């Protein structure tokens, strides 16, 4: 993981000191062509294979992709023996474990309804060692997550990872009360109506690559995966990451590296110029047609770890995403005006009752906005199956 090639992106200093970065909308330039995009990894091992087909869209369009259905998608070897993937809708095609022969080469063969045929090059099956460990340490004001892996036979060399993360969090205020949808009265919450603790998740959107090409051994030592700011809600209680590791060929690595350079590492003073992306999928009859994507074959490895807030520095405090002041007060009968604020602000309004107040009787409720007390706005209450508490 010698990052020699990436040095340019570090040189953004000048821009920070005296410069500025502003949104930029180029003159509307768009190609009317919708090029085929093929994404997915053929899993040679013990798990299913998913291939996503889509087309490019104009920059100005609101959607970022256009799914492609009705293709026939086949993984085949040089002799033409194939495994047909099943369309699942929305451009997704999948098949269960294929247990491919690691000594053979395979390709992805696509046919569209009009008979246009696309195929990838024949690709070797890359051996993928298990992930050794996922670790983390505080770095400046972030939590740095890293992966370590190695292949004792020194023949993997090029790696890519992606991940899915899940975390448990809570809202600012714990509300014990709710407006009954039927009676329109404020009442205590039932157990299934609690919205203080939730789970949220996200997927990697950056391309994470690693290479031991320049090392004497095939070792990835503490390759960075992602960083989480210390103020992030992700670290508030408990966090988990499921990391998937893919072994690549050298060409595959270059494809991803190129895509990363083109879309993630621009904007420094010494930018490399954007370059054309050369995948390994082609229109069989018209090789000049651009097709985006690189198909590789490997045995996908994965590993999950949990990080508990107690493992992190104690002075790390999550920043709440909404602006929540102190609780507001709503009387059934306001002392001076006599207004029924509970009726106006909570039952008819958007306020959420948190706790009642009053001497010997409920004179009203302290209330707040949904953002400050309802975690379901940005998460789910139900615990995922893989979740493990300490």
């Amino acid at each position: 993981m010698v990052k020699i090639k990436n040095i340019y992106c570090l040189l953004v200093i000048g821009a920070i000191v005296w410069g500025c970065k502003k949104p930029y909308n180029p003159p509307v330039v768009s190609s009317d062509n919708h090029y085929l995009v093929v994404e997915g990894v053929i899993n040679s091992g013990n798990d299913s294979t998913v291939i996503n087909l889509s087309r490019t869209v104009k920059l100005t369009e609101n959607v970022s992709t256009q799914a492609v259905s009705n293709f026939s998608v086949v993984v085949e070897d040089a002799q033409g023996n194939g495994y047909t993937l099943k369309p699942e809708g929305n451009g997704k095609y999948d098949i269960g474990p294929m247990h491919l022969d690691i000594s053979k080469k395979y390709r992805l063969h696509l046919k569209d309804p009009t008979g246009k045929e696309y195929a990838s090059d024949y690709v070797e099956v890359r051996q993928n060692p298990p992930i050794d460990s996922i670790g983390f340490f505080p770095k400046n004001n972030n939590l740095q997550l890293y992966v370590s892996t190695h292949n004792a036979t020194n023949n993997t060399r090029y790696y890519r990872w992606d991940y899915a993360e899940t975390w448990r969090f809570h809202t600012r205020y714990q509300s014990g009360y709710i407006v009954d949808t039927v009676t329109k009265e404020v009442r205590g919450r039932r157990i299934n109506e609690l919205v203080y603790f939730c789970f949220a998740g996200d997927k990697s959107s950056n391309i994470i690559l690693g290479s031991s090409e320049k090392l004497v051994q095939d070792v990835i030592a503490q390759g960075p995966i992602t960083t989480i700011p210390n103020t992030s809600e992700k670290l508030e209680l408990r966090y988990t990451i499921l990391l998937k590791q893919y072994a690549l060929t050298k060409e595959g690595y270059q494809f991803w590296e190129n895509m990363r350079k083109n879309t993630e590492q621009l904007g420094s003073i010494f930018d490399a110029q954007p370059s054309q992306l050369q995948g390994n999928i082609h229109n069989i009859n018209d090789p000049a047609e651009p097709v985006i994507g690189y198909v590789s074959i490997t045995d996908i490895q994965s590993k999950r770890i949990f990080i508990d807030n107690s493992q992190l520095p104690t002075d790390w405090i999550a920043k709440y995403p909404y602006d929540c002041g102190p609780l507001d007060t709503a009387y059934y009968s306001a002392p001076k005006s006599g207004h029924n604020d509970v009726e106006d602000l909570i039952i008819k309004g958007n306020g959420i009752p948190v706790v009642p107040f009053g001497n010997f009787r409920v004179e009203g409720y302290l209330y707040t906005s949904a953002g400050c007390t309802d975690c379901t706005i940005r998460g789910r209450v139900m615990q995922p199956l893989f979740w493990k508490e300490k």
Partner: protein
Amino acid sequence: MKKLYFLSLCFLMLCKLNYAQQNAGTLISVNFQQAGISQVVAELEAKTDYHFYYNPLQFDSLKVTIQLSNKPLEAVLEMAFKNTNFRYAITSGHQVFLTRGREIQTRLAADFFGNKPGVNQSSPNIVTNVATANFTDEKEVKVPEATTENKLYEIGIKTNTVEPGKATLSGYVREGKSGESVVGASIYVTNTKTGVATDQFGYFTITLPKGRQILSIRGIGMRDTRRQIILYSDGKLNIDMQEQVTSLKEVKISAEKVANVRNVQLGVNHLDIKSIKQVPTVFGEADVLRVVLTLPGVQTVGEASTGFNVRGGSADQNLILLNDATIYNPSHFFGFFSAFNPDIVKDIELYKSSIPEKFGGRLSSVLDITDREGNKKKFTGSAGIGLLTSRLNVEGPIIKDKTSFIFGGRVTYSDWLLNLLPEAYKHSQASFYDFNLDISHQIDDKNNIYITSYLSKDKFKLNSDTAYSYSNKNINIKWKHNFNDKLFSVITTGIDHYQYDIASFDNAVNAYRLNFDINQTNLKADFTYYLNRKNTINFGASSIYYKLHPGNLQPNNTQSLVMPDVIPAQQALESAAYVGDKYDITDDLSLSAGIRYSLYNYLGPQTVYNYAPGLPKTSANLIDSTSYTKNKVIKTYSGPEFRLSARYNLGDNTSLKAGYNTLRQYIHLLSNTTAIAPTDVWQLSDPNIKPQYGDQVSLGIYRNLKSNTIETSVEVYYKRLRDYLDYRSGANLILNHHIENDVLSTDGKAYGIEFLIKKATGKANGWISYTYSRTFLKQDDINAGELINGGAYYPANFDKPHDFNFIGNYRFSHRFSISLNVTYSTGRPITLPIAKYYYGGSERIYYSDRNEYRIPDYFRSDFSMNIEGNHKVHQLTHNSFTIGIYNLTGRQNAYSTYFTQQGGVINGFKLSIFAKPIPFINYNIRF
């Protein structure tokens, strides 16, 4: 007639013989004890009827102790001056001339009557008992220093009547106060159309009709002056000029300011440090390269780059010479500063079109930067304090009037600035320094030695765990020898070194150190021969030995698993021989024609990869490799380079010029970033990477207006490039053992028209330039690999069609002046996304053909004020302030635009550098 002269000469000599015999008759007795000259002379005058002439000052150290009786006067003087360097001469009129160092010839000069030297030598010379010398031709003789305008200087051996014909005048033009040579001063004879310019040592040679002439001398930053001479024969004249002290009401003597019109060369810009210092720059420190960027035909890709593009050439096609040393990285601090200390630099010359035949090795231009010579008369110095840098320079004589030194140094203290940065960059460090030390020594009138050296180092560490540093080291020795008035030579040898170093520490397993360096050893000999009035011939030869270490990756500690990876060193020898003639065909038509033959040998030891012929050079087509032993010539490239230019005068202040030149370049900078990055590597041509070749034809019209105070010019050019390197998509240029797999040979074409209006003098001065130019490249050879844009021409990165610059200075008083600088140019080409898609968890973008679109246009204006302290001559220090604002309008010029995904969505951004008005202040002190 000749016979008659000869007879007269014989007659005169006979007379002389007579006198010698006569003198012997008068006998005198003397007794001097520690007598001073006045005492001696008084006594001798009393005892003889001779009258003595001498300069008492010359004799103030003489003490005579002799006792003689009844000796002739000659014997007395002989004895008195024995073992001293005092001389005497006795004339027929009973006059005695006492001199120091040389004797006055009492007879007329041997060739007084125009005799041929051969005849002269065969004549008997009678008075030879003491050392005799010809005033005009002796080493010890001090060449007259012509310091005043109204005196008539006699050059050569005086004759009663001026001979018809021509004679050669040579000498140095120097700055009166410091004795420093004035380079590029033009010397014109008002009534003829010939003129010359002084060379890099301030030396000139001009052939003129004999007789009375008025020389007009004009040097940049110098007060225009003239010298009246009467030229009898070949001779020397050193001219002292005065620095231009600008005044409110300037008297203009401008009828002779025609150098730009009269010069044969075209596409040459000369700037002295004074005009450079007037241009406002971002940190208030005068910057040589920033000013070069305002010249017509010079462009840059952006503000953080000191790389520049001349007439459609890439940044590595400029040969940057600092006192003849090649500077590989001319920038400091991410390109915000140029590597040249403004306190040391004397002037710069940029050759865009007529590149003299003595230069070679780069395709686009030569930027020749010359340091000042140290003050030969007294110690002086200056210091400057700016926001980020401080400078100090000291200069002075080592041996008065003979040897001097100049030292300049700069350092940064930028860490305070970095500490103001957001957390993510707070722990960054950046610093640089540079030092110049130059020594010049005059051995004698014919030999000068110059030693120049340069050292610079940049270090930076951004918040990451990686430290970068790079360094230039140059030293060279120059020996200038005048064989005679017509032939002189400069022999230069030196070493140039550039290296960078990247080191990573953070992660023990991956810690590495990466080095790159390039070394060149130069030897060159340049000769100039002034054949006659019409022809000046330059010839010479040069050789450069390159040794380049393209990359060396090593583990940085014992735990590191980094595999050492060393790309074998590359060696090559680049040699050239050239000859050129500047021929004044008529007064109006001049031609400069030169040919340079360059020869390049790629040398072993090396392993060269062989690829299947006619197929792209990719690993798939690799056949085998061949190993070569040390110093074995692996591949030779060679070819002639032509340098032609001609000028035709259309009247007194207008001329038409045309030029054609071809160049070859054997060393390439591998860079696929927009701006030159400090970590780009150089690559020598080898069997798989061909040298670049370029040729250019240009045409210009020059006209001076308003008594030559305004210079105007228009030049058009068309240029072709062959085998210019571009890169495959996703090329890896660092530590690549098969670099030929990642580069593409492209062909290019560039054309443009450049306008320049310049007013060099007056209260208001400055220049306006406008350039329209285009530069295109293409890669259409399907066998060479990937086609770029389907093989069609595409604009180069630095293709900026419209480029306008205004530099204006206005002087309110001696102590206060203001400067304004306005720049506009078309935005440079970029590759824009044309479609988007979803891949790898995020929106991604699909790019258009290369360089199909442009970033927004660039506009910037800068303003500065120079405030000088009082101008009393006798004070300890002289102070001045420069206060100004860079980017007055605060326009957020796009340095680049880019599209990057954040949180899974593609956003377009425009990156601006110096996006706000930036105030600056600089304090300078001179002592």
